[in-house]
C-alpha cells in the first residue's frame, strides 16, 4: 500500500467489535499491568542512585545475583544438552512407554512450584531416595547451590524439549541421507547438518528456560535452605527485604533484576536474529 493511496477502509478492519475489544483490552492491561509497573518505576526513581547502588552492591545482594544468574545459566545449559537428547529420542525413535514419557515432560509446566519444591527436596535431601545415594558418594545436593541447579533444571525442562522436538521432527531426512551418500560419518552429519538446523530452536529453548529459572521462587525455597551468601536467590532476598519493611531495598533489587533479565532477553533476541539471518535454511 503506497503512502499516496487513501485507505478504502478507514477503520482497522472489517469485522465489528473493534472499539469494544480495544477498550476492554487496554483498560484491563492498564489496571493489571501498566499501573503496577508504574508504581515500581515511580518508587524506583524516588531512590537516590547512591542508595540503589549501596543496596545492590552489598555482599548479600551480589551473592544472590551471582547465584541466581549462575544457577539459571547452568540449569538452562543442562537442559539444552540433555533436553536435546530427550527431544531427539522423542522425535526419532519409537519405544515402549513413549506416550507416558512424552506426557511427563510437561509436568514441570503444570505442577505448582511449591509442590515441585517439597517434592525435589524429599528426593534430594540426605534422607531422600537420590540424596542418600549421592551422600554416600560425598555429594550433597539439598541446601547447596547444586540443589538450586537441580530445581532450576526441573523447571526449565519442558522449554528446551518442546521447542527443539518439533524442529527435529520436521527435519527433512533427505539432508542427512545426502550427507551420508557424500561420505560423511554420522557424527559429522550431526555436527554439520542437524545441529545448525536445530540451533535457533535450541537457543530459543535455552533463553526461555533461562528466563523462567531466573524468576523462579517456589521450587527453590525448600531445597536451597535460603542461606544468605550461600544459597539465597534474588527473589528470596526481595521477600526478605519486604518482611523487614525495607521497601526501598526490595524495589532497588527488583528494578536491577528486571533490567538485567530484560537485557539478557534482548541479547538473546539479537543473537537469534543474527543466527536466523546467517544460518537460515540449509
Amino acid at each position, binding site marked *: 500500500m503506497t503512502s499516496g493511496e487513501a485507505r478504502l477502509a478507514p477503520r482497522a478492519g472489517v469485522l465489528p467489535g473493534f472499539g469494544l475489544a480495544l477498550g476492554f*483490552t487496554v483498560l484491563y492491561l492498564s489496571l493489571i499491568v501498566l499501573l503496577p509497573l508504574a508504581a515500581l518505576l515511580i518508587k524506583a526513581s524516588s531512590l537516590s542512585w547512591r542508595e540503589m547502588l549501596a543496596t545492590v552492591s552489598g555482599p548479600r545482594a551480589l551473592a544472590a545475583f551471582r547465584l541466581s544468574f549462575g544457577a539459571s545459566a547452568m540449569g538452562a545449559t543442562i537442559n539444552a544438552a540433555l533436553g536435546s537428547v530427550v527431544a531427539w529420542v522423542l522425535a526419532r525413535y519409537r519405544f515402549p512407554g513413549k506416550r507416558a514419557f512424552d506426557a511427563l515432560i510437561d509436568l514441570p509446566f503444570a505442577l505448582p512450584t*511449591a509442590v515441585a519444591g517439597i517434592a525435589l527436596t524429599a528426593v534430594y535431601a540426605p534422607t531422600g531416595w537420590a540424596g542418600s545415594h549421592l551422600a554416600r558418594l560425598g555429594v550433597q545436593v539439598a541446601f547447596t547451590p547444586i540443589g538450586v541447579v537441580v530445581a532450576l533444571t526441573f523447571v526449565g525442562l519442558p522449554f528446551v524439549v518442546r521447542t527443539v522436538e518439533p524442529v527435529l521432527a520436521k527435519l527433512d531426512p533427505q539432508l542427512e541421507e545426502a550427507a551420508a551418500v557424500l561420505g560423511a560419518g554420522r557424527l559429522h552429519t550431526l555436527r554439520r547438518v542437524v545441529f545448525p538446523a536445530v540451533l535457533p530452536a535450541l537457543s530459543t529453548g535455552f533463553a526461555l528456560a533461562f528466563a523462567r529459572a531466573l524468576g523462579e521462587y517456589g521450587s527453590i525455597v525448600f531445597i536451597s535452605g535460603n542461606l544468605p551468601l550461600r544459597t539465597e536467590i534474588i527473589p528470596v532476598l526481595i521477600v526478605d527485604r519486604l518482611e523487614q519493611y525495607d521497601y526501598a531495598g526490595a524495589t532497588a533489587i527488583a528494578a536491577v533484576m528486571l533490567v538485567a533479565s530484560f537485557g539478557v532477553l534482548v541479547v538473546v533476541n539479537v543473537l537469534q536474529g543474527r543466527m536466523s539471518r546467517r544460518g537460515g535454511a540449509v
Partner: protein
Amino acid sequence: MRWLLVGVAFTFVALLVVAPLAAVFAQAFGHGLAAYWRAVQSADTLGAIELTLLIAVIAVPLNLAFGLAASWLIAKYDFPGRSVLLSLIDLPFSVSPVIAGLLFVLLFGSQGLLGGFVARHGLHVIFALPGMVLATTFVTFPLVAREVLPLMQSLGSEEEEAALTLGASGPRLFFRVTLPKIRWGLVNGVILCNARAMGEFGAVTVVSGLIRGKTITMPLQIEILYNDYDFVGAFAVATLLTLLALVTLAVKRIVEGRQPGAS
C-alpha cells in the same frame, strides 16, 4: 546407540520428574490412609482449599474475557500499537512472581502509590483477598490469550466475514461462528490458566501477609505445614494440587487430539 540415548533420556527424566512425582504420594501416604485423611480435612487446609478455589473462580473468568478480547483484537484487526500490545501480553513471563507481588504491594501498600487512597476508603487490598486476586490475575492473564490467539490467526476470518455479509450482528457472529471454531484452544487456555492460578506461590506469598485463616492458599499452606515439620500434611495438600496438574495435562492431551491446530 539408540538405546544408549533412550537410556540417557529416561534416566534424566526419571531423576528429575518421576522421582519427585512419586515422592509426593509416597510422603503423603507414608503414614497410612488415616493420617492422610486427617491432614486433608484439617480446618486450616479446608480453609486454604476454599480460598484457592475462590481466587481461581474470580481470576480465571476475568482472564478468559481478556484472552478472548485481546485475541479478537490482535487477530482480526490491524492498528498502530498492535505489536506493543503483543509484547505486553508476554510480559508476565519475564517477570518473577515475587516481583509481580511486589508491584501490587508498591501500588496498594501503605507506602504505595495508591496507599493513601486505599486507607482513606477503608479498603483492604494487599494482605487481603483483592490483592491476592490481582496478583494471581497478573501472573496468569497471558495464558488464555496465548492459546486462543494463534488459533484465531491460523483459522482466519473468512467465516466471520461471510457471516457479516449474511447480516449477522457482532455478538451473533462471535458466539455462533468464532467461539465454536476456537473452543478447544479455549478449553486448553482455561485449564492452564486455572492450574497456574491455583498453584501460584511467589506472587501470592508476597501479597498475602500469611494471615492464618484468612489469606492462606493451598500452596502457602503447603509451605506452612512443611516449615512446621508436618510433612504428611504438606504432602497431603500437595497430592491435591498434583492431581490437578495431572488432570490438566490429561485434558490438554485430549484437546490436542481433537484439534491438531490447538497449542
